Each structure stands twice: as C-alpha cells, then as structure tokens.
C-alpha cells in the first residue's frame, strides 16, 4: 500500500516536471524573428472615390511578422522553406513592441498620403499629356509639414515632427532630405525645430529614419480614406495603392484582372519604387491567392530573394513584373490593359 502510494507520488512528480519542461519549451523566446506568408487585401477597401468608380483590380500583399519566436517555433520554421528566419539585430533589440506598432502606423499613414499625392499629381500630368478630355478634372491641394521620425537612437522620439532644420523651412521632402544629408556630410551643426516649437541640437553622429508628413487639404474628385483599415502597418503598399488610384482616376477598366503589388513609393521627381521586406513570403501569398500579376521593385530582379523564387520555379506560377518608377509601372499597366482588354 505504501509502495503504491510512493509510486503514485513519483509518477506525479515526473508528470509535473514534464509539464513544466514542455511549457517552458513552448514559451521561452529565442533571439530570432520570423516572416511568414500573409494575405492579400483589395485596395478598394482603403480608398473610395466619390462620384467615380474605384478600381477593384489591385491588391496589397501582407506578411506576418513574429518579432521573437520561441525555441520550438524556431525548430518548426526550419521545416518550412516559406518561412524566413533571421537573427534579431541590435536595431531590432532597441525597439519595444509598442515602438514597432507606432513605426508601422507612421510608415503606413505616410505611404497612404504619398500614394494619394503621387497618384493625383501623376494622373493630372498624364491626363494633360495624353489629352484625355473624357476624364473629369483632377487636382490636389496639400501641404508638406516636415519629417516624421520613424527611428532615432537618441535626441528624438518616434513620431516627432521636424518642421525646420537650422531654422530653414522646406516645401518638399526631397529638398529637406537633401539638405540634411549635406549637413551630415559636412559635419555641420544640426538644429531641429519640432512642430511644438521645441528645438533640439544634434551634437554627435547618430542615425535617423524619417518619413514625409503631409496634410491633404482637398482632392478633386473627392477621396475618402477608410482610417479603420489602417490597422496593419508598413509602407510596402505604396506603389500598388498609387497604381490603383491612378487606374480609378484615369478610368482604366481592367475588368476581372487581379493585380497584386508591393514596393514603396518614394516622393522624388520620378516617384521611384523602393525596396520592401519579405519578397519571397509575399510571392507565396500572391500565388496562393491566385493573382494574375505581381508587380515588384526592379531591385529584386537580381536580388538573392528573386533567385530563390526562380529556383523554386515560383515565377512559372505567376507573372512577375519588375518596375523602377511610377511611370514604368503605368507603362506596364497599359501593356496589361492592351493585352487583355483591347
């Protein structure tokens, strides 16, 4: 009787130990982060043009980011080649989860505003150059407010808006960025003026990442942005959002074609399409969601990621289009239109 009681006690002890060991294995975080395939979202859920039909042919592509995977997840990730596993850098470690969420919102909002400005400016120019008289007038009024801080090691906080540098105001992002770069190169003193009037002097070399902050005052045709849908973060939808708006403003009817795209929209003279993260995971997402085309930045034509896509013959399953700027993206879009619709 006593022996049985002891045996039961020992068994209970072993079970409790096993339970705790497995729970620890499932919870203990590793020093790795992961990106997995995500989903596609129709751009027409974000933008709505009044009195003009909004194109429903364009899709942004998202991935799922795991900021710190557990040891067990790290082990599992090695069995799935669609999952990108990377060691957390010093930069990643310096950010808290709420910082990352804030950054995602800043970049997303900036990319939405940049897309609207780029789309309206580009469409207006395109309309004038091609004498598209059947299309209603297109115009946009906006104000450039300054840099919004996305990342700063010290001196600044995420979300700070810099309206002046060395007491100089700027009317556009490219000029302000160029001015700051020249000051950094010549190692001159840098004095930032924030939107609340606070002045910050940068005394030593430090790293910053800024996004442009715009205030859109009026658009013709009137545009509504569904703010509730800005829950996800990141700037990678910039190019496809711009293309979607351009197609809607220029009344480009693409019927049932499904076009996904990824890449940022840079606010320079050519509206360059910038790099993004997780291209391989995005390609898998696009294939799974049965899109007809996938527009990506030209950078990936030669990058290792695209090599991986080619090696896995993913490009046989989807038509990948590489573009460097908005004009080229528009040309490709017209090619698609002529191939399928005309």
């Amino acid at each position: 009787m006593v022996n049985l009681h002891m045996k039961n006690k020992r068994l209970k002890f072993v079970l409790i130990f096993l339970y705790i060991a497995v729970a620890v294995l499932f919870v203990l975080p590793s020093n790795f982060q992961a990106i997995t395939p995500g989903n596609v979202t129709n751009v027409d859920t974000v933008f709505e043009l009044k009195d003009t039909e909004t194109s429903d042919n364009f899709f942004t592509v998202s991935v799922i980011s795991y900021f710190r995977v557990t040891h067990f997840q790290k082990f599992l990730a090695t069995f799935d080649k669609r999952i990108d596993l990377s060691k957390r850098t010093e930069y990643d470690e310096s950010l808290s989860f709420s910082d990352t969420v804030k950054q995602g919102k800043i970049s997303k909002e900036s990319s939405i505003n940049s897309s609207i400005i780029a789309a309206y400016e580009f469409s207006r120019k395109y309309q004038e150059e091609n004498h598209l008289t059947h299309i209603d007038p297109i115009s946009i009024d906006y104000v450039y407010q300054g840099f919004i801080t996305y990342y700063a090691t010290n001196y600044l906080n995420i979300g700070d808006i810099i309206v002046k540098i060395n007491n100089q105001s700027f009317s556009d992002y490219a000029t302000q960025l160029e001015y700051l770069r020249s000051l950094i190169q010549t190692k001159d003193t840098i004095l930032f003026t924030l939107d609340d009037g606070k002045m910050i002097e940068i005394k030593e070399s430090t790293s910053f990442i800024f996004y442009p902050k715009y205030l859109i005052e009026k658009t013709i045709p009137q545009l509504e942005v569904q703010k509730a849908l800005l829950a996800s973060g990141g700037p990678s939808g910039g190019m496809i959002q711009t293309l979607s708006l351009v197609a809607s403003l220029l009344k480009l009817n693409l019927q049932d074609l499904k076009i996904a795209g990824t890449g940022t929209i840079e606010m320079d003279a050519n509206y360059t399409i910038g790099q993004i993260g997780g291209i391989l995971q995005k390609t898998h997402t696009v294939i799974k969601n049965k899109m007809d085309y996938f527009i990506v930045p030209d950078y990936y034509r030669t990058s290792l990621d695209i090599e991986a896509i080619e090696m896995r013959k993913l490009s046989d399953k989807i038509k990948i289009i590489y573009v460097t700027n908005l004009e080229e993206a528009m040309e490709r879009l017209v090619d698609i239109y002529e191939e399928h619709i005309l």
Partner: protein
Amino acid sequence: MKNIFYSLRNLSNRYKKNNRIIDGNTTVKDVVYSVVLGLLKSILWILLPSLLLYNLSIYPFIYQLMPIWIYIIVNVFIYLSIYYYYKHLKLRVNEIKDLNTKLLLNMEFMFSLFVTTIILIIFLSFV
C-alpha cells in the same frame, strides 16, 4: 422566466437564512473553493494545447484557422471548468432531478465565471 425568478428568490433566501445553499450542506466557501479549483484545473488542461497551437501558428495554414482554434479552446475551457466545479461539489448534474437546483448551480457557476472574468480584465488592464 418564472423559473429563473423563483430560483433567484430561493437562492437569496437560502443565503440569508443560514449561509447554506443547494442541499443545505454546501457552504459559500465550498462553492468558491470549487470554482477556483475548477478554473485552475481547466487552465492546467488547456495551457499546453494552447501553447502548442500558438507555436504551430508559425505555419500559415494553422495561423489562418486561429479563430476556430480559439473558439474550440475557449469552449473546452468553459466545459472543463463546469465539469470540475460539479466534481468538487461532489454533484453530478444528471443526478439532480430538481430543475430549480440545476438552474441554481448553473447560475452560480456562470456568475462566478463572470466575476472572475471581470477581475481578470481589470487586472490585465493594469499590467
């Protein structure tokens, strides 16, 4: 509706009279003990499967089914909690013939669960 009203009045009277409920032998302390133990035991049962699912969610097809997993786990948790609650009160629902008593038991349990959830939400909002 009439049943619920009578049951509530019945429960209130029993508390007022002698701090004894249901069968006249179970104290409020017993009920609280059973609820806490029921919740703890069910947490122990669902903790590992939940953590395993969280870990497996790194695979896209498991991640996409997350709402279903969460629904299943929450339901299993509720049913396990009810089961352990009755078990510790040394009662079996099917053995109880009286409808009012059955109703009372369920109401007590749901009320305790509701209070626990509120406390948990308040606690989590401070963390």
